[in-house]
């Protein structure tokens, strides 16, 4: 167990929000075809409201914070916010499309001690990336920004989201990341819109392509181990939780709303009405979520994949029941092992659409 995992476990025991994801805006200069957000900025938190949220998180024990959006750099106060988070001694990651990172911004990011900049890149080919973002020239600007960040010594990673638009390009993007000297993460995640609209799910990759990715050594490391269906379930697993959402992870929207995770739109409270501590400790929704152990999942606890499944309770919630299976994660377990999940068997072994799960697979460096 790594030190971070150890501290995360301790945070779980102590009820501390060790990590937080704060979207400071949902406005964006790109219009990505798969985006799950609307881009209305009306009612966004002010600078002072965001600083107050960061102060509350820091005082609650938050160590890691992701500042994201939308495009966070669209806010004129973005650097003021980043500076404040660093002054609170938080470990700050910045998620951005990077098109607004020029020489001055790259130097400032380095100077502030931002731990990592995470950048979405949809293709090694400019025309494909720009077709996804609908912003002409965005690929060139993003690549140039990555170069500036690297030149300034900023730890940078590329996240490559798989979808029909960029089908079959993951290996080439991984190669580009290696040439640029940055980390690479492939993400088979198309998330339904937060209002429940699932129309963008049609952009997800095919089951066959996911299976190829999940059986590729360069994406998952040891394929035999990753795809081994024989991991035994034990008491620790059954006593555990699906993920850190709501246990040690909180998501704050630009409108001061608290959720367990950016992919888990279960309302837990508004920071315009209550303090973060009140919401974190006393929200009925959060406490209900925390009461659910793996053993309490009505279907998944009996499933053969329970020991290693990437089940996302947020996606299950979007399907109507956070205690239930997430059909897309059933699809991933099936793609890994060739064995239908219990939910699939009960549904007559239909292979679900597989591309909206939460799994992120770090590239093997």
């Amino acid at each position: 167990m790594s030190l971070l995992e150890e501290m995360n476990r301790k945070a779980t025991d102590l009820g501390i929000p060790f990590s937080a994801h704060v979207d400071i805006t949902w406005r964006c200069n790109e219009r990505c075809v798969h985006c799950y957000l609307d881009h209305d900025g009306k009612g966004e938190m002010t600078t002072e409201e965001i600083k107050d949220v960061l102060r509350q998180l820091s005082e609650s024990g938050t160590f890691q914070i992701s500042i994201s959006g939308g495009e966070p750099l669209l806010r004129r106060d973005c650097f003021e916010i980043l500076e404040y988070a660093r002054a609170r001694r938080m470990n700050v990651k910045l998620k951005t499309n990077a098109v607004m990172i020029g020489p001055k911004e790259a130097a400032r990011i380095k100077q502030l001690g931002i731990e990592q900049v995470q950048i979405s890149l949809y293709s090694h080919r400019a025309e494909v990336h720009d077709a996804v973002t609908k912003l002409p020239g965005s690929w060139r600007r993003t690549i140039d920004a990555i170069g500036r960040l690297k030149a300034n010594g900023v730890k940078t990673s590329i996240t490559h989201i798989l979808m029909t638009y960029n089908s079959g390009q993951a290996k080439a993007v991984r190669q580009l990341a290696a040439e640029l000297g940055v980390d690479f993460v492939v993400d088979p995640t198309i998330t339904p819109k937060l209002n429940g609209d699932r129309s963008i799910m049609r952009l997800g990759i095919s089951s066959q392509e996911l299976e190829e990715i999940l059986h590729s050594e360069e994406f998952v490391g040891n394929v035999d181990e990753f795809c081994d269906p024989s991991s035994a379930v034990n008491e620790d697993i059954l006593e555990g939780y699906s993920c850190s959402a709501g246990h040690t992870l909180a998501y704050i929207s630009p409108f001061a709303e608290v959720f367990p995770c950016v992919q888990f739109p279960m309302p837990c409270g508004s920071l315009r009405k209550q303090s973060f501590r009140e919401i974190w400790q006393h929200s009925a929704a959060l406490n209900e979520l925390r009461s659910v152990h793996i053993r309490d999942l009505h279907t998944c606890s009996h499933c053969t994949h329970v020991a290693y499944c990437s089940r996302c309770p947020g996606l299950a919630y979007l399907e109507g029941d956070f205690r239930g299976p997430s059909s897309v994660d059933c699809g991933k377990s099936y793609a890994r092992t060739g064995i239908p999940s219990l939910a699939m068997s009960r549904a007559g072994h239909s292979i679900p659409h597989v591309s909206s799960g939460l799994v992120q697979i770090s590239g093997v460096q």
Partner: protein
Amino acid sequence: MAATETYITQSPDIACSTLGDDTIIMSTLDSTIFVLNSVGTAIWQGADGATPLSRIVQDKVCLEFDVTGDEAMADAKEFVDELARHGILSVSSQPVSPGEVL
């Protein structure tokens, strides 16, 4: 001749948080992570650049953890040297004002 005092200061190039008795610290320069136990946390929290290490050890370690001064000071110096090698703490023979720290 009096022994030289040691003053310790938390580096600005870190992220940290306290969980219970432990403190997690990460260097933002190289992402190295350290976890301090309760004694290390006591010294870390006293590292304000103005309080001599001997005073931190006396007030925060000896009194709270029931150890002798010499033993605690030797361990504390070793601990401080280790963190200083990783750029987590800076060590000075003179007090450091807050303006000099950041």
